[in-house]
């Protein structure tokens, strides 16, 4: 199955990618990550032979961009005051404390938790996107939840 026109791909997966990024890197960095994700997707698109699981394909790219973004933020010493204007308004997250705790999880756990609960994907797909087994995906989600309980649940729920 050859991939559909890129516009069709965008219409189908845009919101899912953006949602994954907002909950992985936060609303401030989601726009940059989205741009990098779609630029990388466009570059690879003509060579793509299998158009059957584009959701997993693009979330794999988004996951890598999210990891890069987290690394970049760790290197940035102070948040710059004169950030370029964000093209979109910020998404308001429910339970901001929880998402702050999610942001502090190890990368694989963080991605596994977001993919499982926010993207609502089965463990098999989570594993595929993170390039780990289904069992490892399950393990990462459980460890992530356990860590969140330690970080967050005790004092805030």
């Amino acid at each position: 199955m050859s991939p559909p026109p890129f516009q069709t791909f965008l219409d189908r997966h845009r919101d899912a990618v953006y949602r994954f990024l907002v909950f992985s890197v936060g609303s401030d960095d989601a726009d940059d990550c989205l741009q990098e994700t779609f630029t990388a997707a466009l570059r690879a698109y003509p060579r793509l032979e299998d158009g059957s699981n584009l959701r997993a394909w693009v979330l794999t790219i988004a996951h890598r961009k999210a990891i890069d973004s987290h690394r970049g933020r760790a290197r940035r010493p102070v948040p710059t005051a004169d950030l370029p204007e964000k093209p979109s308004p910020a998404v308001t997250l429910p339970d901001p404390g929880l998402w702050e705790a999610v942001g502090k999880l190890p990368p694989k756990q963080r991605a596994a938790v977001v993919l499982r609960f926010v993207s609502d994907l089965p463990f098999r797909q989570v594993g595929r996107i993170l390039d780990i087994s289904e069992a490892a995906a399950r393990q990462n989600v459980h460890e992530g939840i356990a860590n969140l309980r330690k970080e967050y649940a005790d004092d805030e729920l």
Partner: protein
Amino acid sequence: MTNFELDEIEAALRRGAAVDVDTQAEAATISAIAAADREGLIDVAVSTVDSPVGDLLVAVTPQGLVRLAFDPTHVLDDLAERISPRVVESPVRLDPVRRELDEYFEGRRRAFDLVIDWSLTSGFRRQVLEATARIPSGHVTTYGALAAQVGKPSAARAVGGAVGSNPVAIVVPCHRVVPASGGVGNYGGGPERKEFLLELEHADTSVKGPR
């Protein structure tokens, strides 16, 4: 107690799935696509142009105007298959086309300055369509005359097929080709549209040149 807390965390995480991101995602995607366009990653830019003959689906490549269709059904799939799957909506890229079409429908433009990308046609069909593109506004010609012009005087029927395959309606004016027997004849967009375009151009349908 422990399980209850676990469920609370999961429930809180799942609330993320219900957050409406549509507006933000759309805005962020538009700016992401604009950036990708600047990097030359869009092979076919498409948009809709509204006109007195209905919404037109237009597509451009770096080579020029490649498609102008009355019916958008399957057009994107066809472009993806025949040119490149990197087909993306980009209203900005279509602004020059939109401007010329507006001028045309307002009666302020008789000839288009747009460059045509002929890659959706080839061979005999392309030869016929390039001849069609040279029929001036205000004039009509017949399938037979066009056949003679491309050096195949007995191929009026094949010329009809070639004209009917026109991927760039209006700008390549296949509506200016009419039957010798009278009337406006067939049109991909329907005869009413053909009549409308010929009236807009004040075409003298009694003089069917070249002869």
